C-alpha cells in the first residue's frame, strides 16, 4: 500500500466508522426487523417474535390503506415537486434579473418559510384555510367564488397541503437555482444576442442547458423531500385527514410503528419507501445522462 493511500485510509476511518455504526448498521437491522412480526408482545418478551419472511410485504400489498397512502404520496410528489421547481426557477430568474431591486430582501423573504418551524406555519395556515373566516376563502369570496372547506373536504385537502408544501419548500430550491444562474458565463448570452436570439430563446438554449446539473440536484432533493412528506399532513390533518385523503407513506409508517407498535410491519413500509426514493433518484440521474 502506498503511503498516501494509508494516510487517506487513516483519515477516512473515523467517518466511515460513524457511517457504518449509525447508518449502515441500523439499515441492516431495520431490514431484518421488516422480516419479523416485532410488536408490543415482543417488547414484553422477546420470545414473542416470529420470523415471518416476506409476509409483512405481502400483507402490505394487500392493505387498501397502503395503496391509498401510495397514491396520495405520488399525487403529492408529482404535482408538488414540479410545481416547487417551477416556482423556484421563476423566483430565481426574477432575483437574478438585472433590473431587480432589493434582491437581498426578497431572497430573505423567499427563504424565510424554509427555516420557519412547521408547527408555527401550521397554526397560521390553519387560519388561512379556515372555511368561513380564513384569508383564502375571504379572498375568493371577494371575487365571487365560494371556497371549499380546504382541510375538511377529501378532494381539496391534498391540494391545500401541496400549496403549503410548495410555499414552504421553494425558497431552498430558489437559492440553489440562483447560485446556478450566477455561474452561467455572461459571454454565452452575448454570443446568443449577436446571433439574434431573443429573451425566450436565450432562456431555452443558454440558461436551461447550463442549469442542467443544478436541475438534477434540485430534482433529487425535491423528490426525496416530497416522497418522505410527513410534517405537513401530520400537523394540518392529523389521523390522515378526511377519508384518509392526506395519509402518506410516512404517516402510515408512523401510525403502524408508533401508534400501534407494529414495528416489523412499519419497517416493511420504510423499505418500500426506501425503494421508491432510490428509484426516483436513479430516474433523475438517468434522465440527465440521456440528455
Amino acid at each position, binding site marked *: 500500500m502506498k503511503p498516501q493511500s494509508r494516510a487517506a485510509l487513516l483519515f477516512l476511518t473515523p467517518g466511515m466508522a460513524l457511517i457504518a455504526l449509525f447508518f449502515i448498521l441500523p439499515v441492516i437491522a431495520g431490514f431484518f426487523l421488516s422480516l419479523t412480526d416485532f410488536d*408490543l*408482545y415482543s417488547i414484553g418478551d422477546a420470545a414473542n417474535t*416470529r420470523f415471518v419472511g416476506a409476509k409483512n410485504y405481502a400483507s402490505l400489498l394487500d392493505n387498501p390503506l397502503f395503496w391509498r397512502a401510495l397514491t396520495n404520496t405520488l399525487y403529492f410528489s408529482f404535482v408538488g415537486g414540479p410545481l416547487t421547481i417551477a416556482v423556484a426557477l421563476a423566483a430565481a430568474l426574477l432575483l437574478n434579473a438585472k433590473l431587480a431591486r432589493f434582491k437581498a430582501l426578497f431572497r430573505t423573504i423567499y427563504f424565510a418559510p424554509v427555516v420557519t418551524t412547521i408547527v408555527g406555519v401550521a397554526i397560521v395556515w390553519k*387560519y388561512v384555510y379556515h372555511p368561513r373566516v380564513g384569508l383564502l376563502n375571504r379572498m375568493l369570496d371577494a371575487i365571487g367564488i365560494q371556497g371549499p372547506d380546504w382541510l*375538511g373536504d377529501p378532494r381539496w385537502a391534498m391540494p391545500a397541503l401541496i400549496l403549503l408544501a410548495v410555499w414552504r419548500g421553494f425558497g431552498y430550491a430558489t437559492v440553489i437555482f440562483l447560485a446556478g444562474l450566477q455561474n452561467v458565463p455572461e459571454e454565452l448570452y452575448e454570443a446568443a444576442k449577436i446571433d439574434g436570439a431573443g429573451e425566450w430563446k436565450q432562456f431555452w438554449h443558454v440558461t436551461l442547458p447550463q442549469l442542467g446539473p443544478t436541475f438534477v440536484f434540485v430534482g433529487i432533493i425535491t423528490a426525496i423531500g416530497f416522497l418522505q412528506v410527513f410534517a405537513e399532513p401530520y400537523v394540518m390533518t392529523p389521523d390522515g385527514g*378526511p377519508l384518509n385523503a392526506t395519509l402518506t407513506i410516512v404517516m402510515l409508517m408512523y401510525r403502524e410503528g*408508533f*401508534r400501534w407498535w407494529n414495528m416489523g410491519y412499519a419497517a416493511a413500509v420504510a423499505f418500500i419507501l426506501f425503494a421508491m426514493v432510490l428509484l426516483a433518484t436513479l430516474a433523475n440521474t438517468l434522465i440527465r445522462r440521456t440528455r
Partner: protein
Amino acid sequence: MLFLASCARPQQSTTIEFWGLGREGEVVAELIPQFTKETGIRVDVQQIPWTAAHEKILTAHVGGSLPDALQVGNSWMSELVTIGAIVPLEPTLVPREDYFGGIWDTNVIGGTLYGIPWYVDTRLLFYRTDMIPNPPRTWSEWMAVMEKLRRENPSRDFYPIVMPTNEWPQPVILALQRGAVLVDDDARAHFDDPRFIEGFSFYVDMFRRGYAPAVSNTQVANIYQQFGEGQFAMWITGPWDVGNLRTRLTAEQQKSWSTAPLPAPDGTPYPGVAIAGGSSLVVSKRSEKQEAAKKFIAFLSRPEIQSRFYELTGDLPARKSAWRAIEGDRELAAFGRQLDRTVALPRLPEAENIVNAVAEHGQLTVRGQYTPRQAAQALDKKVDAMLEKRRWVLARSPVPSPHAGGERVRVRGDARREERPLTLALSPHAGRGDCRPEARP
C-alpha cells in the same frame, strides 16, 4: 426536641419522579408541597402533553427511562402490562368500594390490580333544554325526539344531533348498549352478531334519516357556538365540555342546555351503559423507589386531595366520597349517575386500534359503501387479522383473560346475553387523546 425533628423527616433525601399529562401535570405541582411536608419525599414533576404521551411512555419504557410514578389513560393499561412496564399494586392501597365499578375494572388486568383511578370521565347526552324538555330515556323515545325536531325544522342549518363520524365512542357505545361483545376471551372478533349490528344500525340510521350530519370533527367549525345558537339539539361528549360550554357560551345561552345520562335500548335498565374513561396512577417496574411512589399515589387518592384536585382542574374525582362538592352541580351530577353504568372496552393492547376500525367502518357505512351487515363482516375480517398475533401468544402461554378481573361481567336485564361474558372497561383516553375535539380558537 432534636430527636423528634429528625424522626419527622426520615427520608429527607428521597426524590421521586412523576409524569403528569396535560393540564393535570401542571396542576399536580400545587398539591406536592403538602405531600413533601408530611413524608419528606420530594416529587419531581414532568408535564407531558396528551398528544405525545402514549408514544413517549412506550419509548421511555423501551429506553429504560420511565419515571417512578406516572399518570396514564386507563385504556393504555393492558398495553403497559403486556410490555411489562408497570407493577401490580396492593388493593389495600385505597378502599375499593369508594370507586366506580366500571372504572375500577379498567385497572384490573387478568385479576391483578395495576393502577388506581385518579379522575374519571365518560360520555353522555348534552341537550338543549328549550328544544327537548325531557331528555329521552329509551332508544325509541330518542328516535321520536329526533324525528319531531327534524319535522319541525327541516332546514339543513339544523340537525337534531351531532356525532362526528371520525369519533369511535358513539358507534361503540351504542353497540355495547345492545350487548355487543366485540372480542371474546379467545381473541376472536364478534362483529357479525345481531347485538353488534343492532347497535351499529341504530347509529347509521341517525345519519340515513338525516338526524345527524355526516361530518368529521374537523369539519365542525365551532361546535360550542353552534350548540349555543341551537344549530343542533343533542351531542354525546364528556365532562371536559361542561367547562368548555360554561366559558364559551353567553350568559343568556347558559340557560338553555343541560346534560342527561344516555338513553337505554328499550327493555333494558336506564341509563344505558357508557364506556368508562379517565386516568389512572401507576408505578413503573424499573423504579427503585416503588414504596415512595405508592405513598404518593395513596396521597393523591385521599378524598380531601381529590376534592381539591377537582377544584383545580374540574376533573371528576374517582372517589365517590369526593363527589359531595359536585352533587349540587346539575350538569356534572348527571355524570355521577352515568358513571354507575359504565362498561370497559376489551382489555387488549389492540383495543384502540379495534375501536378506531369501528369508527372507520361507521364512516364508510354512513357514506353508503357498506350495509351494516357488510361492515360487520369486514370488521370481523380486519379485527381477526389484527388479533392473529394475540391468538398465537395465547396458544404459547396462557395470558390472563382480557375481560379483566378474571370475573366475567354480565349486563343486567338482557336474557340473551346471559351466556356470554360482557367486556366491561372504560377508557378515559377515549375522550382525550383521540376523540376529544381539538380546542378551537
